[in-house]
């Protein structure tokens, strides 16, 4: 059963980073760097967002010997979800979340 818990500070920071330019596809590592999350926290968040239909994924073709790269951006439902977030009114509070294992 899908649980719709309130988003954590880390999730909100990822959502806000994606919502900054909703049309833009983003890389996972760039997102992690921007919101200062470890990969072990970021990917569970991305998986959860995609499961809830808030995140759209695609593949960027590989270049040379490098493999294809996964891309992320908000769906329209994701944009609506971000717009409804109370944290949007205070983006500075969610810009640098603490890394907590429990959020992963």
């Amino acid at each position, binding site marked *: 059963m899908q649980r719709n818990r309130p988003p954590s500070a880390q999730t909100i920071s990822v959502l806000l980073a994606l919502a900054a330019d909703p049309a833009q596809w983003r890389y996972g590592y760039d997102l992690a760097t921007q919101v200062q999350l*470890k*990969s*072990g926290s970021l990917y*569970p968040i991305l*998986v959860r967002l995609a499961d809830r239909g808030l995140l759209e994924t695609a*593949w960027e073709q*590989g270049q040379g010997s490098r*493999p294809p790269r996964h891309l992320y951006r908000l769906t329209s439902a994701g944009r609506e979800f971000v717009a409804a977030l109370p944290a949007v009114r205070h983006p500075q509070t969610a810009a640098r979340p603490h890394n907590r294992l429990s959020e992963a």
Partner: protein
Amino acid sequence: MLLIPMMLLGIAVALFRRSSQAVVYGPRPDVPLQLLRWATGLLSEQRAEWGQAMLGELAHIEGRARRWSFAIGCIGTALLLPPWGRTAGAVVAIIAVAVGSLGLYASVIIRYRLGASSLIGASIAATFLLSFVVAAGVALRRRGAAVPGLLGGLVVALAWVAASGFTFSNMILRVWPAWALPLLFIVVPAAVGGLGTLWGGSAAAGRRTARLAGISAGVGVYLYGTLAVAVFGAGGLPDDSGFSATYTINDRLGNNLTFYLALLPLVTATFGWSAATLTARIKHLPDHADATYPPAAPYVSMTPSSAALSMPYDVEPAIVSGVAAWPRSARVVLVSAAVVVILALGFATGLRG
């Protein structure tokens, strides 16, 4: 006596297979990539794409520290990311059997007042069982490995118990008929590895089947053997004369550990592994048959100039062939090691017969 050549055979196969692959494929990828490949292989089928996403991202990260940091986080995610599906039930079952064995071991220590010295054996058994539970947890999460591996484990366990005539006394003293040694040590493990290869469609699937069968059978038969000691204590047929009951029980518990937690998994994995590779070679099956991601579509062009789609990224590059790709020296050493093991088994069978 048998343990040493068995271990030598396993080590010889592993070393030469590793070196031969290095010759075929060139330098190995760095450790973070190898670890992440392994970990993402544990993801369930519906999460496999996320494993590919992590691997694809790692390929674009420069710098050792950054790669390690990124890979460690992703490995943790891959190890824990649900769903585990029916695998969780199998892991719980193996944990229950392992805990049951330790509980029986503790009850024997208390009931027969074996003293503090027996705690060393109990600690070794606990270490073995803990490592087996972890290994089983990993092996069971491999796609398509659980059912053939557990079925194989059941067959191996039944063979070991049947060889003892389904009696506790023979289980403790390992009174086996002459035909039992080649059956238990070669035929059954080889059958499990070979059938696992046919079931999974690749040599890697057969090797995983053999490993999981060895682990699960070892844990199960060890529980049975410990139960036999708990029931018989120092009773039953005399195995060593002139020793105290405490010594005899300790000896039997130690023998259980050697045979069922060390020898059984080792021979099952070793001969199952060899049979898996051989079966794949004979049936022209690939060494690895893992699914490749990402799918052909949808792709997003991030740069206006990029037009053509690239080849899908293969997590574990398909190995061209099994034994055929090995250097000649590796095959010679492998055959020599196998001959040594067979001679040792024949010698041991002759002694018992």
